[in-house]
């Protein structure tokens, strides 16, 4: 029953943020929220830009690339010299080059794949000044790109799609900072650790043991890591650590925070294109697929572990408890896991490696669907729109018209860009996985043999290619090979989709709007929802079916046999 109520309350709360946060974000990006204009203005003056300096999609993309490149360079530098910087009570030395590369790419691309243990590798300064800062800005960049694509639909005959600097500044000032601040207070109020005082050492004279307990500014980092679908926690154990995820309430809050912006952006979309129904249709696609995956994963985790069953132990009503916090339980952990793998967040409060095969299948395939249900902040919406454009193209043809989406004709250029955007992710994930299983340094990674070992490699590169950051564990990722390959995987998975998305925004914004008629392919009804779901499932399914067959599916069909 508890699980039922969790779901119900979650639905209600998400409904509220969908409606009101969505409308608020539309107001922010339409320039109607101005109460911090006095903070914005000096920024713009410094950069020599402003709202009135509209950019073409190429200039917008240029600004984005420059900004991200500078973020990468500064981040890398700071991690390399962290030993000489302040806020380093543990006197941690420089982060090694390959790991620094992987880590900074990971945070700039909103992935938060962690090949390091936070409390043993990163100084407080690195955690705050590099990682947390990127958790804010990379989320802003993602949202900004989604908004340009929305503008592509809402504008007509426009050569420009907005101003990058204004978009990310407003996103930070009006959306991410205030919400993360409030959520942070709540999380710390629940008992999460928030201090710069360094670890404490406890001596237990009775047992003669001395223990060092790491502490740090974990509470507020937890807020933005979830709100911005980053997922990289302060501690190595991420949100399974009671210092960052102290209670059932914070666990629930983390789920809500993660899902709130990606879902609400569909309302923002509807509001900005002046048809909330269109936003509802996209939300419908997200809810249906998300619901199915929660069901698969929760059902699977509610079953006993087949390996335990095979060993002759009878399990009744316990579910698969290996690798799960008892305070969260099997189904809620599954809900948490699904929420994090389908939002490109990637935080964990349980060990995915210990999931039943179909539970692991749920987490893995959730990412393989391209992180669109609801996906990462911004990236979920723009990637889903890419899939929707393909659905509209095929559907539109089937009714005998050059396809249109919101009155914008979908022609060769749009199909090319959407095709490119949809092509990148399967391509890099499959190719990098193939490289990893073929070279010695790649094969050295997984701790398990057979299909589970394959699953571990596939999972890692799927997670990074989709900018998720969820780790299955069981893979020694902190090797030069995985740091570098993973870093490239993340960069391509982020920017090789963002740039076509911006190109699409530019192409669409330049078009005139064809008025809708009875002969128009409706893009706000259940048929459209069905077709878009079809495209998402078919593209993901057809590209990954063979790979998944050799991993989780074989495991499932082996009924607990080890390899």
């Amino acid at each position: 029953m508890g699980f039922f109520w969790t779901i119900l309350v979650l639905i209600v709360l998400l409904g509220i943020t969908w409606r009101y946060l969505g409308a608020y974000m539309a107001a922010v990006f339409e320039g109607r929220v101005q109460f911090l204009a006095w903070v914005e203005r000096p920024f713009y003056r410094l950069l020599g830009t402003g709202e009135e300096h509209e950019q073409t999609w190429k200039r917008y993309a240029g600004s984005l690339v420059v900004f991200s490149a500078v973020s990468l360079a500064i981040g890398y530098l700071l991690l390399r010299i962290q030993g000489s910087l302040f806020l380093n009570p543990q006197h941690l030395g420089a982060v090694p080059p390959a790991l620094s590369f992987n880590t900074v790419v990971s945070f700039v691309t909103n992935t938060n794949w962690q090949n390091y243990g936070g409390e043993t590798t990163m100084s407080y300064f690195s955690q705050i000044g590099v990682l947390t800062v990127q958790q804010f800005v990379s989320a802003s960049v993602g949202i900004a790109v989604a908004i340009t694509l929305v503008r592509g639909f809402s504008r007509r005959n426009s050569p420009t799609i907005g101003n990058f600097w204004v978009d990310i500044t407003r996103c930070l000032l009006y959306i991410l900072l205030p919400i993360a601040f409030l959520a942070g207070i709540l999380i710390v109020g629940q008992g999460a650790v928030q201090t710069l005082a360094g670890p404490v050492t406890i001596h237990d004279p009775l047992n003669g043991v001395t223990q060092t307990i790491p502490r740090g500014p974990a509470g507020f980092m937890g807020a933005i890591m979830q709100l911005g679908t980053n997922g990289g926690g302060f501690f190595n154990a991420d949100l399974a650590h009671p210092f960052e995820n102290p209670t059932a309430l914070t666990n629930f809050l983390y789920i809500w925070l993660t899902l709130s912006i990606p879902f609400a952006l569909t309302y923002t979309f509807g509001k900005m294109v002046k048809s909330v129904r269109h936003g509802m249709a996209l939300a419908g696609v997200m809810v249906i697929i998300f619901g199915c995956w929660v069901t698969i994963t929760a059902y699977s985790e509610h079953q006993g572990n087949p390996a335990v069953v095979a060993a002759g132990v009878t399990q009744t009503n316990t579910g698969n408890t290996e690798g799960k916090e008892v305070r969260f339980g099997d189904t809620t952990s599954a809900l948490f896991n699904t929420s994090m793998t389908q939002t490109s967040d990637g935080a964990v409060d349980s060990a995915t490696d210990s999931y039943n095969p179909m539970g692991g299948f749920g987490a893995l395939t959730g990412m393989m669907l391209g992180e669109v249900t609801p996906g990462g902040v911004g990236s979920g919406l723009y990637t889903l729109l890419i899939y929707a454009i393909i659905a509209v193209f095929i559907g539109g043809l089937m009714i005998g018209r050059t396809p249109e989406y919101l009155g914008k004709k979908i022609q060769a250029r749009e199909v090319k860009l959407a095709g490119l955007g949809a092509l990148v992710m399967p391509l890099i994930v499959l190719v990098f996985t193939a490289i990893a299983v073929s070279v010695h340094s790649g094969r050295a990674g997984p701790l398990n043999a057979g299909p589970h070992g394959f699953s571990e490699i596939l999972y890692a590169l799927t997670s990074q290619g989709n900018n998720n950051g969820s780790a299955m564990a069981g893979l020694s990722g902190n090797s030069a090979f995985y740091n570098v390959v993973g870093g490239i995987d993340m960069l391509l998975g982020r920017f090789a989709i963002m740039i076509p998305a911006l190109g699409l925004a530019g192409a669409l914004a330049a078009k005139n709007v064809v008025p809708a008629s009875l002969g128009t392919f409706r893009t706000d009804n259940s048929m459209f929802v069905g077709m878009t779901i079809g495209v998402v499932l078919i593209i993901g399914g057809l590209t990954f079916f063979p790979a998944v067959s050799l991993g989780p599916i074989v495991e499932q069909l082996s009924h607990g046999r080890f390899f």
Partner: protein
Amino acid sequence: MTRIDANPLDGGHEGPGAPTVARGVAQPRSLFDREVLGRALIDSFKKLIPTTQIRNPVMFVVLVGTAVTLIEAIARPNLFAWSVTIWLFLTVIFANFAEAMAEGRGKAQAETLRRMRAETEARRLVPDGTEERVPASDLAKGDLVVCEANDVIPSDGEVIEGIASVDESAITGESAPVIRESGGDRSAVTGGTKVLSDRIVVRITAERGRTFLDRMIALVEGANRQKTPNEIALTILLAVLTIVFIPVVVTLEAFGHYSGASVSVVVLISLLVCLIPTTIGALLSAIGIAGMDRLVQRNVLAMSGRAVEAAGDVQTLLLDKTGTITLGNRMASSFFPVEGLDEVDLAEAAQLASLADETPEGRSIAVLAKNRFDLREREIGADHTFIPFSANTRMSGLDIDGRRIRKGASEAVKRWAVEQGGTVPADLDPIVERLARGGSTPLVVADGPRVLGVIELKDVVKQGIRDKFEEMRQMGIRTVMVTGDNPLTAAAIAQEAGVDDFLAEATPETKMDLIRREQEGGKLVAMTGDGTNDAPALAQADVGVAMNTGTTAAKEAGNMVDLDSNPTKLIDVVEIGKQLLITRGSLTTFSIANDVAKYFAIIPVAFEATYPQLKALNIMHLHSQTSAVMSAVIYNALVIVALIPLALRGVRFRAAGAAAILRRNVWIYGIGGIVVPFVFIKVIDLVLVALHLY
């Protein structure tokens, strides 16, 4: 300038796919004509040349795959490798065959036309007034030629002198001759047609090799066929779907290796070919060519595939009232006598007034009087004078037995009656006004000073046109009636015909403005036209269908020419355009949906040696690895052949709203596309096993 045969009821609407009456260029050919079939078979092999084949990227990948399996089959000969190679090769051949079939019909038609163009001699006028005989191919633009009875007109031109009846059946298939005369909108003649009587002088308007016939030949042959915008977009999507499956299959080799399972190259290539969208890739260009061909079958020549595609997108149809919506000639429909007079007296006078009037209106008055009151037409003796209609008097009539009967425009007849010393009855004006407001033309009849009453002439709306407009509305297409009538009359007819809007008192300028306005709103506009003053609007419209009877200027401005000169056909053109896109979309969906079953056929058996557990996914219970892979490959090849007729004919199109069409096609081609291959792959597997092949 009348078209002799012009029966406006002719050329009634038939939906695309309905049996067409073959005429003119549209030679009667069944879909699988033996001659066409034979040539298509040869062409399918000619198209194998890599430089040609690469134009179809999907099939090119199959061809490369075939080469790889061939090498494998030669290096390690076995039945399986050879069978796969042969079937993959057949897949390419089938695709080429589909395209060759679609082209074949056009080529056969082009040959017929070429025979027609065969050396004609022209009688060129030399400046000194004499004639010289030159081959038609030597004629240049601006030359003057003389044509007399039984001469074939050597090239396209304009009649600058004389009048003649011309047999245009060679082009239009219409056997009844038409009149061509100098001046006006009926002066254009087409090379290859034949003068039946009289003598005309024609000024050649076509450049050498650029005549209508030349263009027609190039068109049906598909000589300059270019991919249409939509075809390009779809080709890109198919390329994406091909590119994405190459790494899927290539990486599978690595994954298999890691898992300790080695998958043979032949199986991998088979999997690749089964996954890439070969079905639609094979049929895509055939669908486009067949779409153009369907228009030709209906005697419409589209100057580009782009125009055909645009037709499917049209949202506004501009239709001329006369000849398209109405029959075009006004007919008497009732008599309205003024107070104190019998209808029969009015009818009798009206009939008398029309006795010598040979215009269709005049004839219809006599006929109405006869039908209503059984009034026989009187023999006219010698003692009468016929007063013909003139633009000045605006009335006509008859002086007979001392009676002076007149009929004509209300104001003119009223003035005439007053001049004769009569008065205008008080109830006349209300009747006239009421009729005018109703869209009819009132003709007032007077017998000397006595005004008798009014004849109502109605422009009769074509039967069934209202239902047609309703269908258009369901498809989301707005119909606009264009007429020179005043707004009152236009509104009444518009209402009767059921069009969505009308443009009254239309001039070429207002028509042009309307098109521009619609286009600025993002809509695509289609229209028909025939006059020289229609040319700018025809050029501006996204789909401009020029009537073959029209002027050269009109024909050059439009992007389609209707050889039957039947403006109602615009509606067919729209439907054919839609059908073309629907066929593409449906087969794309079908092609992608098919992949699901092919995966379930191949993946479980590909790794059966290493992971026998995967057999649980072999839900079709296919016999063995080889039989499963073969079944999928054979299905993949045969489905192309099976769908050729569908690609050439187009999927069934019914006018309906977008939602209904989509639902239907998703069910048939989407859901059907998932289910059908499961059944057929299983059947093929059973057959292969029964034949003890694998």
